[in-house]
């Protein structure tokens, strides 16, 4: 199925949780916040929420330098 991540379309296996999607993209979970369809997904829900066809994700990385 297709989802949008940071403005680009990707094909991912069906039935993934948010957490599994991050694994799929090889993203370190300590580095990011997740917005799904304009709502921030609390970290405690990443294991439970299943992603759906057409979901729009923004994966926001911590950037802390100055």
């Amino acid at each position, binding site marked *: 199925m297709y989802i949008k991540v*940071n*403005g680009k379309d990707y094909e991912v296996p069906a039935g993934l949780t948010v957490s599994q999607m991050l694994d799929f993209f090889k993203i*370190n979970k*300590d*580095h990011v*916040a997740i*917005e799904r369809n*304009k*709502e*921030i997904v*609390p*970290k405690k829900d990443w294991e439970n929420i299943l992603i759906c066809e057409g979901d729009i994700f*923004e994966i*926001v*990385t*911590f*950037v*802390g*330098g*100055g």
Partner: protein
Amino acid sequence: MRLTNEQIERYSRQIILKEVGGKGQEKLLNSKVLVIGAGGLGSPALLYLASAGVGTIGIVDGDKVDITNLQRQIIHFTEDVNKEKIYSAKEKIAKINPHVRVITYNTKVNASNIREIVREFDFIIDGTDNFPAKFLINDACFFEKKPFSHGGILRFQGQTFTYLPENACYRCIFDSPPPKGVVPTCSEAGIIGVMAGLLGVIQASEAIKYILSAGQLLTNKLLFVDLLNIEFRTINFKKNKNCPLCGENPKIKDLIDYETEICDLKN
């Protein structure tokens, strides 16, 4: 307050902008902007705020200039190595625009001093280099109802947004700092000087627009810049009802001093 002939001439190229004008210039001259961190982000921000005629500029920094800073912290020169950053910055500001009043704080911000400091200013620029300070500034500005510009940079990337009271805050996206040591610092991962320059100038631009009430601010939006691939991307985000600071059931009632891990610490 009436503009002097010298001021009209000095600021003429921005006074002719309809968004500025004589009234806007007077607003800038009467405004007070605080820059926390006179480093990669703070250097360009300070230079442009001073040249634009922001009347009072506060600088908070407890560090001395190090030779590794000079590649990006453009307010500091080679001859300033080992000098306190606040004094180095203050000297340059006086050379660019001697009319600016500079208030220096030779310290790091912490939970016991930050509220008193930000209270004195109209707009705050976060030019700090570590997550504990970034969360502290967010929380202090929330409690003091002060607008601020958040900025973060690493490698060729940067991100920034502008907080206005009653709008989304940093914790609406990131509820707490990342575990210590997980996200690399500038000294570990590197930073290209131009990224600091670009992002610091965007932060100064947000401060100036806020004072002028001109245009659109980066409020409820997060701007990402990737200079390596020359990509600019803005995502919208909104006030998060689950935010531990500004949400419906806030858990954070006071400032927190997280353990600091400093970006520029020399190893």
